[in-house]
């Protein structure tokens, strides 16, 4: 049981590349913190710095009131679950879980009790004598979890633990991890690039980009009030529609746009209607593509031709293209002209460089 505090943590590689550019995060005791961001944003590096597998070139990492910058991984009282599970291939499931306890000189009887308890919780009891190569992906993942929980550490670290599993198992394990963490009430830091995993698991969500923290907060707060255009387009699927406020049609419609250069609207905040948009936005769109997902339908529409182009960042929409979510399976047909309206209070305004949110 401990809180983890990162104070202006930096990582600069000998070549001069700055992987982490000053990160401040405070994870309270028993909280589940998720680091999310695109690949290369430094989230894994940051986690490995907490684990002690990467050196810290600036700032402080504090686990349970002790600065651990110079402390060996073994002495930080943490346990880590790796993306490829990193099980010891020559040891049985039992020995995989017992290894960390034996290294700490625990009595065999106590080890047996702990391993068997963990195996019971994770439904691994019948496979304790098997070798990792005789297990399925999901079972290996559970052994990796077991190896972490038998240690009863202060902090769990997860490095994309579900990304090697198939989609269905991933969802099941996601729920399992959350339940297990709630029950053990152990402070956890979890790295993922999957925004859905991040949203569903986190008590505190840390959105990272380019070695910096874009936003920290409760997942729903982040979803409802993204601090930057990066967060706006990264959290939420399909991404938020972001449009520059230079076109007269848009700017004239919206009230109170002082200082804003970009407007963002989530696909679900649009309504296809002919009513007037008082202070909000009404867009005339030509339907280009339709995706039926079952419970909802995504309509891809284009605005004016001259605004079309290529997306500035991966995951963002090309300029001029707008996604509108329609509930159910009813929707317009391809080629149809529609009018999508969003009310004023659903608009997100950002500065022209996208680095700051304007207004509430």
């Amino acid at each position, binding site marked *: 049981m401990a809180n983890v505090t990162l104070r202006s943590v930096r990582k600069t590689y000998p070549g001069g590349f700055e992987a982490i550019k000053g990160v401040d995060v405070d994870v309270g005791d028993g909280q589940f913190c998720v680091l999310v961001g695109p690949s290369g944003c430094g989230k894994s590096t940051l986690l490995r710095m907490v684990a002690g597998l990467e050196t810290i070139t600036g700032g402080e990492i504090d686990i349970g009131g002790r600065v651990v910058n110079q402390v060996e*991984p073994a002495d930080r009282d943490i346990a880590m679950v790796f993306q*490829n599970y990193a099980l010891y291939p020559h040891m049985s499931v039992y020995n995989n879980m017992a*290894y960390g306890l034996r290294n700490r000189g625990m009595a065999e009887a106590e080890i047996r009790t702990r391993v068997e308890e963990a195996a019971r919780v994770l439904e691994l009891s019948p496979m304790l004598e098997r070798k990792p190569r005789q297990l399925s992906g999901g079972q290996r993942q559970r052994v990796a979890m077991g190896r972490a929980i038998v240690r009863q550490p202060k902090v769990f670290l997860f490095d994309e633990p579900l990304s090697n599993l198939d989609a269905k198992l991933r969802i099941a394990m996601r729920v399992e991890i959350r339940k297990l963490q709630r029950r053990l009430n152990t402070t956890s830091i979890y790295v993922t690039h999957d925004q859905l995993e991040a949203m569903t698991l986190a008590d505190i969500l840390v959105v990272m980009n380019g070695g910096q923290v874009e936003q920290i907060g409760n997942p729903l707060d982040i979803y409802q009030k993204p601090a930057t255009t990066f967060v706006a387009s990264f959290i939420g699927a399909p991404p938020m529609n972001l449009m520059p406020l230079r076109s007269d049609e848009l700017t004239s419609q919206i009230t109170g746009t002082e200082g804003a250069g970009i407007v963002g609207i989530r696909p679900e905040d649009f309504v296809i209607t002919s009513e007037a948009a008082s202070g909000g936005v009404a867009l005339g769109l030509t339907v280009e593509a339709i995706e039926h997902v079952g419970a909802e339908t995504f309509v891809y529409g284009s605005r004016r031709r001259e605004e079309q182009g290529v997306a500035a960042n991966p995951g963002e929409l090309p300029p001029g293209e707008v996604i509108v979510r329609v509930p159910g399976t009813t929707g317009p047909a391809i080629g149809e002209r529609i009018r999508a309206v969003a009310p004023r209070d659903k608009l997100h305004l950002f500065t022209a460089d996208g680095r700051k949110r304007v207004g509430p």
Partner: protein
Amino acid sequence: MQKQAIFQSKLLPYALVAPQLAIVLIFFYWPAAQAVIQSFLLQDAFGLSTSFVWFENYLELFKDPAYFAAIVRTFAFSFAIAISSLSFALLLAVMADKPLRGSTLYRTLLIWPYAVAPPVVGVLWVFMLHPSLGVLSRYLRAMGVDWNPLLNGDQAAALIILAAAWKQISYNFLFFLAGLQSIPKSVIEAAAIDGARPMRRFWTVIFPLLSPTIFFLLVINIVYAFFDTFGIIDTMTRGGPGKATETLVYKVYTDGLLGGNLGSSAAQSVILMVIVVVLTGIQFRFVERKVTY
């Protein structure tokens, strides 16, 4: 799955493997058959008459205490060479595996000695450790060691083991380094987080994961020490002093070419052939299985 190759003519596949088969037949099976035949023959001292004596050459060998001494000596040499070369190569590989500046350079340098031919290795070590010419011999004598491998059999044996093991370090190093690099980093990191100190990490995780490589190299090294040390022995000690460094292979040479006892020499070759077959058989059995952990 299609297992049968498609050839229009039945002759073409045979024609394609013929050159390979011819080489194996002419350069291996023919001499081997000659050796087997020769091992059943006995010539008089002047080479004027030859008689077929069945297994007499073999029986003579097994009654000869010198032959038994050579067997014991060869096994002792082989294990000494294999163990010392393997352990030193493993030590170097573990150190070279660390991400240090210039590691590519010294990895490359460590591989170079493999390109040196065994007789040249012998000459190199003779220059360093010859009792009157050797550079190192002077220091040894200055330290009070009565160093004279030309007279002292144990010292000569040590010299052969040293040179032969040194020669093989590069080869072993290469395989160990590859073996170490194929161990996933995360497994070692997991062991570090699990509280295993570097030494314990090595013996409980890295060493067991290297065991297939170690086994493979052990067989290779024993075969090397059995057969490929001929050049080293010939340039350094010629089997002497006395018979202190005469291995089975060297004995084949001295008895046959120098002693003129072709029948006994051939019988010894056949026995060596059997040993190679057994060693290779062991290796295939275990290496084919690949995973031994």
